[in-house]
């Protein structure tokens, strides 16, 4: 026992910290921001997303595994993408681990000072990726589903609540959550925990948000709830003169009808309850956008001044000509060094929309199939055996891709 009755193992080991080395310090505080300013930015996952949508899950996984090993700043992004691939093969343990770790990374929004310096001085994409609010909401959505399937209903509730919170909370609480599937699942989780009043409130809000979705209708107490995630989520692209703005490009293609079959018989069709592109594109602007706008202005200003100086160099007397050329070149170099482009890394494997269906089957085992129309396929097993409980409900999931 040492100081104050605490054991030695509880004492801070300052000496170990001191050993981290001067070189490491220099690398972190000087070289990294300089390198970022000169153009380093983290790779995104567009190639992995393309591979996955093309049906090459193994290729997508290999790309993501490699990025995970080499780029710590994008860790949460790679974990989320891999989590979707884990869901495709129904590996719930791996999905829980990946979405859970990503959740912890994305929840920590304080940011460290060096990250901030790197993102402000250099490229925004040099910062740790923690996602936009809709991506944080979708991470909580998936983690909630995984907890539900693993029987941890209170943590499932926590995740659905967090999905609603992060979707609604930014910008002086101007935006209410409008993602009906999260509210519906929150209601189910509340009910599972015996909080009937809270459950009814969540169901009522979900119904208001998606009045055209029969799965959410009052009185629909079916014991089979089917979640079908359809299509390809929004692509984040740069816009503006120097790429300082971001826009979301929708991929609105969905199959005209999706059939659900139980034991070979038609069971029903899901209908739209939530639109991920809508979630992405309806948030307000970011504080960081004003920093990017300023950087863009500086970039334009130094570029114009540099070109102007070079043009003027021709017209001035010989003794000033050299100085004007140097000044013009320096301004152009400064303009080149300013990285005004926004971070366009985004979660590529998200769906375009979430469809829901709720119906009733007799308790027991059933062979279940989600059959999309021609030109579309399911990502994951074609058939699944589901166990409908005597009381309560079973949650079935499928992803439909072109």
């Amino acid at each position: 026992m040492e100081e104050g009755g605490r054991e030695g193992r509880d004492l801070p080991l300052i000496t170990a910290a001191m050993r981290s080395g001067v070189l490491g310090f220099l690398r972190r505080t000087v070289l990294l921001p300089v390198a970022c300013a000169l153009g380093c930015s983290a790779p995104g996952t567009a190639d992995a997303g393309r591979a996955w949508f093309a049906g090459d899950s193994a290729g997508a996984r290999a790309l993501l595994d490699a990025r995970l090993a080499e780029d710590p700043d994008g860790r949460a992004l790679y974990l989320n993408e891999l989590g979707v691939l884990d869901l495709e093969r129904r590996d719930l343990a791996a999905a829980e681990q990946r979405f859970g770790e990503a959740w912890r990374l994305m929840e920590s929004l304080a940011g460290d000072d060096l990250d901030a310096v790197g993102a402000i001085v250099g490229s925004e994409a040099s910062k740790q990726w923690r996602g936009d609010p809709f991506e944080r909401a979708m991470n909580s959505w998936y983690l909630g589903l995984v907890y539900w399937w693993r029987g941890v209903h209170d943590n499932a509730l926590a995740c659905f609540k967090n999905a609603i919170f992060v979707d609604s909370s930014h910008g002086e609480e101007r935006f209410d959550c409008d993602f009906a599937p999260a509210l519906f699942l929150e209601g189910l989780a509340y009910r599972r925990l015996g909080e009937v009043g809270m459950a009814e409130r969540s169901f009522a809000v979900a119904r208001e948000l998606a009045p055209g979705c029969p799965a959410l209708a009052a009185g629909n107490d079916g014991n089979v709830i089917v979640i079908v995630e359809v299509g390809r989520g929004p692509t984040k692209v740069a816009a503006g003169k120097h790429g300082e703005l971001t826009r979301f490009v929708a991929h609105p293609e969905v199959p005209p009808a999706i059939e659900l079959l139980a034991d070979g018989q038609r069971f029903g069709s899901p209908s739209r309850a939530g639109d991920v592109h809508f979630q992405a594109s309806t948030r307000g602007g970011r504080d960081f956008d004003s920093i990017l706008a300023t950087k863009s202005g500086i970039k334009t200003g130094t570029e114009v001044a540099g070109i102007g100086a070079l043009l003027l160099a021709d017209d001035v007397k010989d003794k000033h000509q050299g100085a004007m050329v140097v000044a013009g070149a320096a301004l152009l170099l400064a303009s080149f060094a300013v990285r005004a482009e926004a971070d366009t890394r985004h979660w590529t494997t998200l769906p375009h929309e979430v469809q829901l269906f709720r119906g009733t089957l007799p308790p027991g085992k059933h062979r279940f199939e989600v059959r999309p129309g021609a030109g579309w396929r399911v990502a994951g097993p074609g058939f699944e055996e589901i166990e409908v409980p005597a009381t309560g409900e079973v949650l079935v999931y499928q992803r439909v891709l072109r």
Partner: protein
Amino acid sequence: MGHVWAKLLLVGLTMLSACGAPMQRVDPDQDDALGGTGVDSADVRATADKIARSIVAMPTIFARGTPYVVVQDPQNQTRFPINDSMIVDRLVTLLVQNSAGRVQFVDRANWELVQKERQLKRSGAVSVPTDGSGQPNLAAAPLGTDYFLTSTLKSLSKDNGELNSDYIVVTFKLTDAETGALVWQDDHEWKKVGEKGVIYR
């Protein structure tokens, strides 16, 4: 003179380099530097400590002798997915370690293990413990409980884009297992406000 400057530079750089230390052992009762407004080790420890003291300070449950308690896993209704059994595990540890047997716990988490062992003993597949006189001792029935200890975590969360806050209350109840009477209730609460970094707003 140059020697002094070199030393100062070296000391300064070494101290600054400690900022990025790969690992530090820290006091679990203190907030760490990672930020976030969720449940931390300090919250788990403070909650367990307060509730353990509250339970042993309550005369009612000792009126009929040593109380037997079944502890249920907490119900997490916050927005934070956590391993909430940590709180009650810590609570039971504190009571077992510090109450000198005044409170006894029935381990229902291992109920199936106990049932299987009882069957093995009675079938002769394994040896049977003996009493003081050397006779087989199989008389004891599985323990019933006097009380259920249940708990719930609830939260109120707010966010204005720059700051977010979470108010969390952990409520514990002791329910008489025979009558259903609520014989005791206590809670522990905290509120945290966190600021988002400018690059994440």
